[in-house]
């Protein structure tokens, strides 16, 4: 074979790459084979171990589901729901019958004993389930529950335990298979790495040999070039001529000869040129001195000045321009003026050039940045003209007006923002609401105006001072801002009132989500001066356009809805609706009619008997207020009492009721020894000044023993201002008046209240007595309340007794006093005097001898 006479660099490179590529392909093929083998081992592991495991878990879940259905069965009381559940249960049993059968066949091949055990447990469990289905068909739910708790859980647990055991065995086998596969994979990876290392070494050796040959010859060429540049003699270039480098050496020799010839001609021309430059320099020095003076004026000017050619490229920048803009003046030279001006809109810069070129002055104030800091600048652009009036250059001046702008913005901010919280104030809030409504009108969307008022904020201010109140408001503002969406507006209207404007809604109910988030934001206590404070919001929501199209109407309706939220118990939100509006009007109407009702003798007191549980004797009465309005008809106390409470009339009404009750008591106590009169007192009346003095005065005026008057207050009264309430209760207790906690069980039902405050009596609310015959939980509460009262030495009264069955039950629980329609409706004073004083009611179990019984002493 004859080798070619010329073996060029390209051939050498191709040969090298071909060899290296072949080696890499070999390595890739080997790696691919190893990956395939690894995958096959993994698939095999999955087939043999993981799928049976999944089937086992599926079976366990199915059995668990069956158990859940079984547990539900015993608690379904509707006959149709029960039939439906039985049908589902039987269907599930049939499915499991098939699945467990099929699984037992598979399991039996490996573990016959366990397969046999599984089938046995399943037969037992299934028979229990069949039994439960039969009992459920007969509505024997107790029987069903009996099997659930006593008979079926053992086979159920046995099945689950057995399936778990089989699953653990399968898991263990799967682990072992996985470890073996991992070990084999690691060994293959090690072999592959050795192979890669060997291949790499071969490639490296080839590259090193080729490189060394090329580098040596290029080094020779480099040495000759260096000597030529230094003007030294270098002699003949000794490089063999069999490839491209040899060709390069020959060409270099020819070039060296030509360079030496041209160098001599250049030296002669240089001498002539230097002479001409010296002459021209002398002329320029004179002109420069004049220019320097003008330059100093520009250079030292505090206003930034920049000069550009008419074409727009910058020629000159003074230091003040650099200081103001924070840019190096040298960097701006030969930059386009449009870019240097940095206007937000490039069209502004284009316009500026046109105005200046036409002979006008263009001016703008714009925000800009100086390094990391922001500032405001004023730019002015005009043209510089030559002696013939032709524009030759453009002159741009730049001033820092940050301080001026800051003063202006501060003034604007104070007019629109609340200084305490930093939130928009009422002015800005109105503006935002108007904008949101305009947007919604245009886009067809909805806007929610949400009026938020803090519950009990006044107490914080009154008790802890305004500084604490202000700190609380700041934290509230932060939490509200964090709770709403980014586009919503939170504003403080003044005091503890906030307005939230949520626009872009597609449906009014989306506002509910915002309101719930705001309420949730108040759950965690606020910490002010290391003191934990709790407060809650009441929120009223009005939706544009459903609840009004005028922003002011929306604000008013949201305000009305907020009051509805407060009346409904606070810490909640309410949507405005027509009924709120109507309710507001209705309350106004009731309030109007109620004023002067006392003078017009539209009010009267009725009395409801208090009956001793063990023998049916009447021991007292509860005085109840009734109102028959000529305009409104018979108005329920639940309707007019809250209105009177709100407008303060309750104080006068309460005083009148107390006097009426004491006057009546004065007569009846002469007919029945120890007769007790109970009078309800509203929270506002209770806190009114002089309440205790009024009670004392009544007792004295009508000559009534204090222990025969019982004052009833509700639990809610104790929740706030406990110090004030305690002082009043202690004073009443000091007078000898009996104190009763009304409606027990409907509020917090706190044992601590009963223990800490000087109560004599607890009245269990009628809602628990109503269902005491059927409702197990009500029965438990009544029993617990009676036991608790006995333990605390309190007397207990059950309200709302309507049947003999309830009487019997309460008597069995040692309840002291009963009250309710079982004994009659509340009646007028004269009817009560004739019917009830010194009377008794026949007990459900039979008659008992009549005897006078005083109110049970505590």
């Amino acid at each position, binding site marked *: 074979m004859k080798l070619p006479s010329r073996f060029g660099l390209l051939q050498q490179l191709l040969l090298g790459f071909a060899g290296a590529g072949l080696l890499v392909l070999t390595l890739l093929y080997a790696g691919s084979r190893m990956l395939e083998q690894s995958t096959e081992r993994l698939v095999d592991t999955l087939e043999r171990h993981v799928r049976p495991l999944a089937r086992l878990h599926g079976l366990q879940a199915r059995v668990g589901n069956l158990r859940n259905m079984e547990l539900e069965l015993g608690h379904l*009381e*509707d*006959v*149709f*729901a*029960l*039939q*439906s*559940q*039985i*049908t*589902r249960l039987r269907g599930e049993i049939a499915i499991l019958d098939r699945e467990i059968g099929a699984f037992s066949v598979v399991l039996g091949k490996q573990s016959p004993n366990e397969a046999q055990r599984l089938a046995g447990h399943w037969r037992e469990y299934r028979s229990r389930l069949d039994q439960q*289905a*039969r009992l459920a*068909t*007969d*509505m024997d739910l107790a029987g069903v529950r009996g099997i659930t708790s006593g008979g079926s859980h053992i086979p159920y647990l046995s099945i689950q335990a057995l399936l778990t055991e089989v699953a653990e065995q399968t898991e263990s086998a799967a682990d072992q298979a996985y470890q073996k596969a991992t070990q084999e994979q690691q060994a293959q990876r090690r072999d592959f790495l050795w192979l890669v290392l060997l291949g790499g070494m071969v490639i490296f050796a080839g590259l090193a040999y080729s490189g060394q040959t090329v580098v040596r010859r290029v080094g020779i060429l480099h040495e000759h070039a260096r000597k030529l540049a230094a003007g030294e003699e270098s002699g003949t270039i000794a490089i063999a001529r069999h490839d491209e480098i040899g060709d390069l050496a020959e060409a270099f020799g020819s070039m060296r000869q030509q360079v030496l010839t041209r160098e001599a001609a250049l030296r002669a021309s240089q001498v002539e040129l230097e002479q001409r430059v010296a002459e021209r320099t002398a002329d320029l020095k004179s002109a420069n001195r004049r220019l320097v003076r003008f330059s100093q004026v520009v250079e030292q000017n505090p206003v930034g000045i920049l000069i550009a050619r008419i074409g727009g490229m910058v020629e000159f920048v003074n230091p003040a321009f650099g200081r103001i803009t924070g840019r190096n003046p040298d960097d701006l030279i030969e930059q386009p003026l449009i870019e240097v001006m940095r206007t937000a809109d490039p069209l502004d810069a284009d316009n500026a050039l046109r105005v200046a070129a036409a002979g006008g002055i263009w001016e703008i104030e714009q925000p800009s940045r100086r390094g990391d800091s922001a500032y405001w600048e004023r730019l002015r652009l005009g043209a510089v003209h030559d002696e013939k009036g032709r524009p030759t250059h453009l002159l741009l001046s730049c001033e820092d007006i940050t301080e001026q702008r800051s003063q202006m913005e501060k003034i604007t901010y104070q007019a629109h923002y609340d200084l305490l919280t930093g939130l928009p104030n009422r002015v800005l809030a109105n503006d935002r609401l108007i904008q949101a409504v305009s947007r919604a009108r245009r886009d067809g969307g909805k806007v929610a105006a949400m009026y938020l008022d803090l519950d009990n904020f006044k107490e914080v201010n009154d008790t802890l001072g305004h500084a604490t109140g202000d700190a609380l408001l700041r934290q509230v503002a932060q939490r509200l801002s964090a709770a709403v969406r980014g586009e919503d507006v939170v504003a403080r209207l003044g005091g503890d009132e906030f307005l939230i404007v949520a626009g872009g809604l*597609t*449906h*009014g*109910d989306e506002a*509910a989500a915002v309101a719930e988030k705001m309420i949730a934001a108040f759950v965690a206590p606020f910490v002010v001066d290391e003191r934990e404070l709790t407060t809650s919001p009441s929120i009223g929501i009005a939706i544009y356009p459903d609840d009004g199209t005028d922003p002011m109407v929306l604000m008013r309706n949201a305000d009305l809805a907020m009051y509805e939220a407060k009346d409904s118990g606070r810490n909640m939100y309410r*949507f405005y609706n*027509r*009924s709120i509006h109507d309710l507001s009007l209705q309350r106004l109407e009731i309030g109007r009619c109620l004023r002067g009702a006392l003078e017009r003798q539209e009010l009267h007191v009725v009395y409801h008997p208090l009956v001793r549980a063990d023998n049916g004797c009447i021991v007292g009465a509860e005085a109840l207020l009734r109102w028959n309005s000529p305009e409104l*008809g018979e108005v329920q106390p639940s309707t007019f009492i809250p209105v009177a409470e709100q407008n303060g009339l309750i104080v006068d009404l309460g005083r009148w009721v107390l006097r009426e009750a004491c006057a009546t008591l004065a007569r009846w106590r002469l007919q029945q020894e120890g007769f007790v009169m109970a009078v309800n007192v509203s929270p506002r009346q209770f806190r009114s000044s002089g309440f205790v003095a009024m009670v004392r005065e009544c007792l004295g005026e009508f000559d009534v023993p204090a222990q025969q008057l019982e004052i009833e207050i509700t639990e809610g009264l104790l929740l706030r201002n406990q110090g004030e309430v305690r002082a009043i209760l202690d004073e009443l207790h000091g007078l000898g008046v009996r104190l009763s906690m009304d409606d027990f069980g409907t509020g917090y039902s706190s044992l601590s209240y009963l223990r800490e405050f000087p109560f004599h009596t607890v009245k269990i609310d009628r809602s628990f007595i109503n*269902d005491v*015959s*059927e409702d197990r939980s009500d029965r438990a509460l009544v029993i617990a309340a009676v036991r608790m009262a006995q333990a605390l030495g309190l007397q207990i009264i059950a309200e709302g007794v309507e049947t003999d069955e309830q009487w019997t039950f309460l008597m069995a629980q040692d309840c002291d006093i009963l009250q309710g329609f079982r004994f009659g409706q509340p009646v007028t004073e004269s009817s009560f005097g004739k019917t009830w004083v010194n009377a008794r009611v026949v007990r459900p179990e039979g008659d008992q001898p009549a005897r006078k019984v005083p109110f049970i002493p505590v």
Partner: protein
Amino acid sequence: MVKNQWARQLAGMLCLAFMLCASQVFAGEQAERAIAATNAMIASGEVRRDAVIKVAFKSGNIAALLGPALELQQEWEQRTGVMINARVIPQQPALLNLKANPDIDLTVARTNEFPDLLDQGLVEDLLPMAKQFGFSIDGKPPTGYIRPRLQGYLGERLVAVPADGDVMLLYLRRDLLESPVEKAAFRKAFGRELEVPRTWQEYDRLVGFFHRPQQGLHGVAEQRERTGGWMFWMPRYYSQAEQMPRLFDDKLKAQIDSPAGIAATESYIRVIRHSPADILADGKDYSYTMPLFMQGKAFASIFTVAGAKLLNSANSSVRGKFMAVPIPGTMQGKTLVRRNVPIYGNNLVVSTRGAQRKLAFLFTMWLTDPDISVRTVGVKGGFTDPFRWNHLNDARIRELYTADALAVFAREWEAAVSPGTGLPGDGDYLEVLDQNLWLAAGGRQSAAEAMRRTAQEWDKITQRNGREKLSSWLKIFNDGLTVSEAGSKATR
């Protein structure tokens, strides 16, 4: 000339075909129209593809309406991409549920609850949407809804789409009624033949004859607990005269303390002595009475057609031994006057405050399609009863309920009139009636006293709710009683 004649004939045939299509809904067509409309709304961007319809049903109704394994819900979601968020609401009036859940789009309401729901603006008038989506709610066989004017309308407003048919039937023990021994004993005791009672008087005699508590057989297991008594009282009241007695006169004065009201109450009370001893106890509702009958411990019972499904189930001891017959009435001269009242029915209503009202309506349209609805009615252990005429001919449903019971069920709709008072405050009126019926049934007051007290309380409720306002509602209700529709006889 010939060509023109041919064209006219073809046009005439096409018009006829169109009229046939428009006059009745073919099975499946209504559902497909609802699906197409939903997908069109999504394609147009009117609703988002990931929109969610919030439905709220009472316990058990979710499986009854959406399928035992929620297969109907899944099918709807797969075909439209619109999700159904179903939640359970308490067993309480729809009024309270709608107020407590302002975000729901669709729920169920009973027919007598419509006035309150409309008065408080809680449910949509569905007619505009029905018109928009080409939804026909006619009551014509073979596929129409059963008595839609009675079950879905109030005046000219379409308040609900019926999804359950709950007219009452009388269930008797066929084996005892046909026993030669019993026949002979009855003839000897009363001098007449033992047969299905046609009047309330005959019914009372019959259940008295079979009342044998010492043998573990009660004459009747008819619900008499504290709540719901009105359902069993109203058929008695309305059948007291050929000219149907009204609950109120035109000035809203309560009329039930009339001789008709007292007679109905006496009939209501009379069966107590032939009932189990604890029939008056709280909680003894149909889940107590129907199992008694199912276990063969009662001769008679009154309940909806759902009773037939229960009694015909594999778990029933009286399967093949019971019969469903029409509700009794009274003889007025030689005319038998009978009137029935639908109770418990689940009618689908769309909330005015829901975010997806149109989608909720379209889902309702789809769910009550003749084909789709067969899959909710023809399910073992389901709650939903036939509410379209085609249900009565479906083989699966006939097997579940028995063909005889379905035949009686279909006829009873002819005698059906609107339940409840038809007035806002219906719950208050019925509660007072229930309470006084219960006290009378317990012997604490006479029938006359019960009706007198009820009438007094009703007048107070009327006064409280505004007599003038209620007058317009009463007119709508009374006008509705006289409207004639397929499957009904006009009420005088």
